[in-house]
C-alpha cells in the first residue's frame, strides 16, 4: 500500500476564502493510501516546503500531493522539494484548487465539493505513479537572437560579451530598428543616434557575433539546448564579400523610390543603404525600383563598381544554424493610421504620425531637421493627439505606454525649433518611469497647452473665418465640459504600438503563443516575463507588449541572462515522461512511426516491433493513443494512471 501525504494550501485567502480547507483535509485523511493530510497557509513558502520534507521523513511518505495553485506555476518547485527528501520527483501530484476551483466558483459548498473530488482524483492517480529516471542531453552553447532593434542588439552584445557565439538575424538591410529613426529620446533628450550607433558598430565588430541582415528565420526544429534553425537570406544583388562600401553606385543610380526609413517623406535610390549610419555599410538593390530589373537595361552600378560586387543573378540562400537558446526581439509596428479615417491621415497633408515627426526632427531626415510641413511652411500651431487607436475598445484596449512621453518630447522640440503654439490632447498623462513625471512638469512650464480630452475628429471644413485654411480638431475638454473646435496648421497623431504584421508566422515557426492583441505570451506575467511556454525560447522588448527603450534594454539583458542559464551548461535535464514500447505486445504495424512528428519511434525489422528513441521523444502521448495493441505506454500519463484519475474525479 502506498503512503501518500496530502498538503492543502490556503494560499492566504485565495483558496481559503471559497474552499473550506479543513474539510478537504478531513476528507483526504480518510482516503485509502493516505497516511497524512495537512493544511498550511502558504505551502510554497520555506516553512511550507520544510513541512513537506519533515513529513516525508517522519511518516515515510512515498508519494506527495499538493493541493494548491496550477501545476504550471509550482510543479517544478515542489518536484525539487520532494527530490531533496529522497523521493523521485515524479511521485508528486499537483491539484489545482486555485485557478480551477476557488477563483472560478463563488459558492463555498460547491467549491469545497469540487476541491474534494479533485483531491480524490489525485489520490487515485498517485497510487499508480512510478518513479522515472532523469534524462540529460548535451547543450549547444551558441544562441540565436531574432530582430536587431535596440532590444536584439543589447541581447546579442550581452551574450557575446559573456563569451557566447551569437547569430543575430535581422529582416531589414540594416540593424537599429525603430530607435535608429528617432531623433531624441525622452526624458533626457539625448540624441538617439549618439547612444545607438556605437552599439550598432559594436555588433558589427564583435568577434562573437555573426550578423545576418536581410534574413528571416524560416524553420526551427529541435528543442531546448539543441535547436536546428534555417535562415533564408534574401538576395541583395550585391556581393557583400566583395563590396567595400564606397557607395559610388548609389550616386549614379537613376532608380528612385520612397525611403521607408524616412517614412516615405524622402526618396532613396534603387541601390541604397537606408540611412548614412546603417550597419552594415553596404548597399542592396531593390528590385521594385531598379531600372535594370524593371526595363531590362541600365546596369550602371555594375559598370561603376570597381570591386565587381554587383550580381544581378544572386538568389536567396539558405543558412543552417545550430543553437541552444533563442531570443525573440522582433519589436512592433505602428498602427496604420489611414484606417482611422476620422483623423484625416492620408487625406490632409497636414496630418502626420509619430514616426514621421521623428524623421522631420532628425538632422539626417528629409528636412535636415527642420520642423516644416509637406508644403515647406513652418507650422504656427500644432495639435498632438494622444491615444490614437490605444485605450480605445474599437481598436486596441491597451495603453501603448510610450506615447504620452514622446508627445511631451515632440512638444518640447517643436517649441525649440519653431514659435508655434503646441496643444496636447490627452486622456490621462501617464508618465510612469524614472524622471518622467519631472519631464512632464518641465513641459508644463514651457507654455504648452494641455487639453484633457480625446480628439474626436480632424476636418478642414471651416465654420468661421479664423478656421479658413486650417485643420480643425474637434475635442471635448473634459475639465471644463466644453466642446471645442481647435484650428491648427499641423496635426500629429500618436498611433498605437501594435504587434508586428505577420507575427502569426513567427508564432508558428518558434512555437510561441500570441495573446489577444497578437503580442507574444510570456510564461508568467509577473514571475517569468521573458520565458515562453517553449523551453529555450525567450522574448524581450516590444514583441511582448508596448515598451519604452529602458524597459526594452532591461528585458534584453534579462533574456540574455536567461539564455545563458541554458547555453552555459554542458548538460540539460529533460522531462522524463517519455513513451516506451512493450515489444512483446507490439504487432509491428508502425502506426507510431507514421504519426510521431519527432521521428522518435523506429521499426526494428529483426524484432518485428517498434522502439522509441527517448532522446527524441517529447512525451505528447500521441503514439500511445495510436497504438492498436496497447503496446506503448506514455509514462506519467499511462492508461491505468489516467483511468484511475477519472474514477477518482467522477466518484463524488
Amino acid at each position, binding site marked *: 500500500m502506498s503512503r501518500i501525504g496530502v498538503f492543502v494550501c490556503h494560499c492566504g485567502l485565495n483558496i481559503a476564502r471559497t474552499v473550506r480547507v479543513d474539510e478537504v483535509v478531513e476528507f483526504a485523511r480518510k482516503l485509502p493510501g493516505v497516511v497524512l493530510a495537512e493544511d498550511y497557509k502558504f505551502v510554497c513558502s520555506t516553512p511550507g516546503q520544510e513541512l513537506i520534507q519533515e513529513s516525508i521523513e517522519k511518516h515515510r511518505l512515498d508519494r506527495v500531493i499538493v493541493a494548491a495553485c*496550477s*501545476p*504550471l*506555476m509550482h510543479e517544478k518547485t515542489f518536484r525539487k522539494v520532494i527530490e531533496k527528501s529522497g523521493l523521485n520527483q515524479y511521485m508528486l501530484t499537483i491539484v*489545482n484548487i*486555485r*485557478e*480551477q*476551483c476557488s*477563483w*472560478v*466558483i*463563488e*459558492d463555498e459548498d*460547491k*467549491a469545497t*465539493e*469540487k476541491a474534494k*473530488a*479533485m483531491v480524490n*482524483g489525485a489520490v487515485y492517480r498517485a497510487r499508480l505513479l512510478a518513479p522515472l529516471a532523469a534524462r540529460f542531453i548535451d547543450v549547444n552553447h551558441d544562441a540565436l537572437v531574432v530582430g536587431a532593434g535596440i532590444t536584439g542588439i543589447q541581447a546579442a552584445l550581452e551574450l557575446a560579451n559573456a563569451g557566447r557565439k551569437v547569430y543575430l538575424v535581422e529582416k531589414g538591410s540594416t540593424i537599429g530598428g525603430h530607435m535608429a529613426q528617432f531623433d531624441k529620446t525622452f526624458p533626457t533628450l539625448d540624441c538617439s543616434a549618439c547612444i545607438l550607433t556605437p552599439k550598432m558598430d559594436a555588433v558589427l565588430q564583435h568577434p562573437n557575433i555573426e550578423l545576418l541582415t536581410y534574413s528571416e528565420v524560416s524553420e526551427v526544429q529541435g528543442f531546448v539546448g539543441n535547436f536546428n534553425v534555417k535562415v533564408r537570406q534574401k538576395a541583395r544583388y550585391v556581393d557583400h564579400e566583395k563590396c567595400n562600401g564606397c557607395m559610388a553606385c548609389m550616386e549614379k543610380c537613376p532608380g528612385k523610390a520612397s525611403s521607408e526609413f524616412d517614412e516615405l517623406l524622402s526618396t532613396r535610390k534603387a541601390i541604397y543603404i537606408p540611412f548614412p549610419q546603417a550597419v552594415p555599410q553596404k548597399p542592396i538593390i531593390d528590385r521594385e525600383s531598379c531600372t535594370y530589373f524593371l526595363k531590362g537595361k541600365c546596369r550602371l552600378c555594375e559598370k561603376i563598381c570597381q570591386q565587381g560586387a554587383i550580381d544581378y543573378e544572386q538568389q536567396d540562400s539558405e543558412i543552417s544554424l545550430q543553437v541552444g537558446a533563442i531570443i525573440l526581439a522582433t519589436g512592433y509596428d505602428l498602427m496604420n493610421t489611414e484606417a482611422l479615417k476620422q483623423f484625416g491621415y492620408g487625406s490632409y497633408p497636414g496630418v502626420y504620425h509619430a514616426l514621421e515627426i521623428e524623421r522631420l526632427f532628425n538632422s539626417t531626415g528629409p528636412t535636415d531637421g527642420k520642423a516644416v510641413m509637406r508644403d515647406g511652411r513652418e507650422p504656427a500651431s500644432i495639435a498632438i493627439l494622444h491615444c490614437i487607436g490605444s485605450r480605445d475598445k474599437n481598436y486596441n484596449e491597451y495603453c501603448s505606454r510610450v506615447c504620452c512621453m514622446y508627445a511631451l518630447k515632440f512638444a518640447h522640440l517643436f517649441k525649440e525649433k519653431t514659435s508655434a503654439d503646441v496643444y496636447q490632447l490627452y486622456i490621462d498623462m501617464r508618465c510612469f518611469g524614472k524622471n518622467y513625471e519631472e519631464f512632464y512638469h518641465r513641459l508644463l512650464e514651457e507654455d504648452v497647452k494641455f487639453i484633457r480630452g480625446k480628439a474626436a475628429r480632424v476636418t478642414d471644413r471651416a465654420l468661421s473665418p479664423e478656421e479658413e485654411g486650417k485643420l480643425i480638431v474637434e475635442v471635448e475638454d473634459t475639465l471644463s465640459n466644453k466642446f471645442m473646435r481647435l484650428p491648427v496648421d499641423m496635426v500629429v497623431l500618436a498611433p498605437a504600438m501594435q504587434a508586428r504584421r505577420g507575427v502569426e508566422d513567427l*508564432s*508558428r515557426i518558434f*512555437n510561441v*503563443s*500570441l*495573446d*489577444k492583441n497578437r503580442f507574444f*505570451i510570456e510564461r508568467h506575467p509577473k514571475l517569468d516575463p521573458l520565458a515562453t*511556454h*517553449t523551453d529555450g525560447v525567450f522574448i524581450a522588448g516590444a514583441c511582448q507588449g508596448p515598451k519604452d527603450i529602458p524597459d526594452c534594454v532591461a528585458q534584453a539583458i534579462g533574456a540574455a541572462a536567461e539564455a545563458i542559464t541554458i547555453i552555459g551548461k554542458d548538460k540539460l535535464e529533460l522531462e522524463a*515522461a517519455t513513451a516506451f514500447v512493450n515489444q512483446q505486445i507490439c504487432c509491428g504495424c508502425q502506426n507510431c512511426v507514421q*504519426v510521431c*512528428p*519527432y521521428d522518435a519511434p523506429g521499426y526494428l525489422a529483426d524484432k518485428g516491433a517498434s522502439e522509441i528513441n527517448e532522446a527524441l521523444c*517529447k*512525451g*505528447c*502521448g*500521441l503514439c*500511445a*493513443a*495510436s497504438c492498436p495493441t496497447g503496446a506503448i505506454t*506514455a509514462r506519467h*500519463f499511462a*492508461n491505468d494512471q*489516467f*483511468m484511475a*484519475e*477519472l*474514477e477518482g*474525479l*467522477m*466518484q463524488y
Partner: protein
Amino acid sequence: MSFDPKILGIACNWCTYTGADLAGTTRLHYPHNVRVARVMCSSRINPAFIFRAFVLGADGVLVGGCHPGDCHYSTGNLYARRRLAVTKKILEFAGLEPERFRVAWISASEGNIFAETVREFTEQVRNLGPQTKLAAQKRMLA
C-alpha cells in the same frame, strides 16, 4: 433544485489548461460542474478514456486542445480531431446523446472562451438530464 450534472474535462497542457488558468487568474466565474484532468496533448486521449468516463457516471465530457494548426507538438491535435470525431459517432451508436460530448479548441489566451464553453456545455448537459445509458454499465467494471 434542478439537476446538477457531473462533467469530465480533459485539457491539453499547453493551450486549454493554460487558458483555464487564465480564466482563474482573471477571476471569471463559471459552473463548478466540470472537473478537469490534464494531458500533455489532446492526441494522448484514448477514446477509451471517454467511454470510461461515461461508464463511471459522467453526464458529459468536454475535451479541450490547441487550435488546429497551433499544436505544441505540431500535428497532435489534428490526429485528436479525427479520433474524437469518430469517438462521437461511436457514442451515438451506443445510444448516447452526442450533445453530451464536446471537443473545443481553446488557446492559452482564451480564458474567457474557456469559461464561456464551460457555461454553455454545462447548461446543455443539464437540459439533457442524468446520463443513464452507459452509467448503468458501471457494475461491469468490477
